[in-house]
């Protein structure tokens, strides 16, 4: 696992509160799987911040970061960042003919690597992305998707509504074989319902507050099914962040 300081190549704003931070990819870094994340050291804070890989090449890694507090704020204009990773189990790549991406807010960012992978595998990509205000990463998803639907809760340039309603429509009209989703907890719970309703497996990228990021502290657990009625606490950082919709128990 890589733990060290990397140079920031550039950092630019995609919107008012979302920033793209492009760093040098160290040579010794292991293979990156779509959906994996890194722990980034936020200077003013004790704990590192988990941030997904939102794009990567053989020489670069891109983090797309929404500024929600002091920690994320401190990450967006550093000359160099300490990173640890890649971490966790990311998305499983399948050779599905039709895949559906469902992204909410900053959750669209970690979908890009899996979208690219699916594209490579010649899957047909249906992207449904939802935002509270103006969208981000619209262009890149447009170029990669066979279908792109964007909804916004407030912007009048886009259809207003929730992304899961749009996804529902796509699922009803197309033979989707695999869903990849990332977004707020409530959206994820809805996606799980869609997955059940249409009997299409869904891979969800979950989020939890993390301390170690590697499975040692047991701080980041989510509830997953065990046996017929039981549950257990799985580590989002290590057992996830990708979980199958069918495994997760949502307490919402």
């Amino acid at each position, binding site marked *: 696992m890589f733990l060290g300081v990397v140079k920031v190549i550039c950092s630019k704003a995609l919107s008012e509160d979302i920033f793209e931070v492009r760093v040098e990819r160290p040579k010794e870094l292991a293979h990156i799987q779509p959906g994996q994340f890194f722990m980034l050291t936020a200077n003013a804070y*004790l*704990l590192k911040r988990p941030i997904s890989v939102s794009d990567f090449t053989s020489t670069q890694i891109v983090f797309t970061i929404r500024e929600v507090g002091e920690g994320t704020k401190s990450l967006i204009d550093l000359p160099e960042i300490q990173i640890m990773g890649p971490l966790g189990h990311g998305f499983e790549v399948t050779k599905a003919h039709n895949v559906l991406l469902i992204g909410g807010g900053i959750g669209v960012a970690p979908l890009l690597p899996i979208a690219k992978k699916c594209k490579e595998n010649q899957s047909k990509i249906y992207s449904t992305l939802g935002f509270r205000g103006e969208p981000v990463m619209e262009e890149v998803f447009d170029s990669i998707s066979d279908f792109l639907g964007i909804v916004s809760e407030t912007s009048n340039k886009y259809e207003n509504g929730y992304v899961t309603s749009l996804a529902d429509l796509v699922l009803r009209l197309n033979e989707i074989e695999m869903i990849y989703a990332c977004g707020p907890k409530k959206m994820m719970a809805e996606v799980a319902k869609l997955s059940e309703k249409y009997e299409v497996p869904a891979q969800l990228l979950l989020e939890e*507050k993390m301390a170690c990021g590697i*499975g040692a502290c047991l701080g980041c657990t989510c509830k997953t099914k065990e046996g017929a009625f039981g549950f257990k606490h799985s580590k989002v950082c290590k057992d996830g962040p990708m979980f199958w919709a069918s495994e997760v128990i949502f307490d919402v």
Partner: protein
Amino acid sequence: MSNLKKTMEVDLNGLTLKNPIITASGTYGFGREYAELIDLNELGGIAVKGLTKEERKGNEGRRLVETPMGLINSVGLQNPGVKSFIENEIPFLRQFDLKIIANINGNTIEEYCEMARILDQEDVDSIELNISCPNVKNGGLAFGTDSEMVARVVTCVRAATGKHLIVKLSPNVTDIKPIALAAEKSGADCLSLVNTFSGMAIDIHNRKPFLKRGIGGVSGPAIKPMALKMTYDAVKSVNIPVIGMGGISTYEDAIEFILAGAHAVAIGTANFYNPEAPLTIKKGIESYMNQYNIQDINELIGNLDT
């Protein structure tokens, strides 16, 4: 002269560590994860995740809240149970040159003793009796804040095992001295402290505590001054060695605890934000010893001019 081989070995009253660096229970799992980041052979010992007799699922809901230079946790002793530890984790840890400290937790005195009896037969180097966990309903903290209860549980566990026995104390007490003394008199070979401080954080937008149980345990640099004071107090009141911990994140912190009289130090929360902390702390202690021309770390223990 300063190139002579320095001695970092410490004797915790029957448990010899090749250096005084331990990783604190609950912050290092069973070593597996950190083994990918650092060489575990560098450690003096590892206190494994708190074990219970049966598997425990741990607490529900959010488990972590970051606070100014601190962390509140409410993990609630999630662990695979002592049997699974014996089967799956001891063999893994035995690959490394370090001492294995089994941290045990019970809901009742009987449960503590049963675990001690089970582990007595197993290949662990020491048993750490955790009577100070604030994150479980029964047992835990309740045992650790009253000298009589401490005496009872330690006496019973002492009878159940001939292994090296560490008693881990809670900082949530008016006076650590009678408690430390009770543990010593009841047969502890060594004390460790501090466990986490009881603390709370509230989500003002939802008007709810962040943690389901309301309270959690506070660790990290924020607690260091209090932890150091308690370690100092404990050291002064007993004749057995003490493992100091609480917010240690630099070698300077570790030296403070050692000068206060700790024979060894445990690194907890610091592992999360600096996985190399045990190594840099060890190196720092070495260079401090070089700087002051100290050959044997034992010269530093309790070497405080007050």
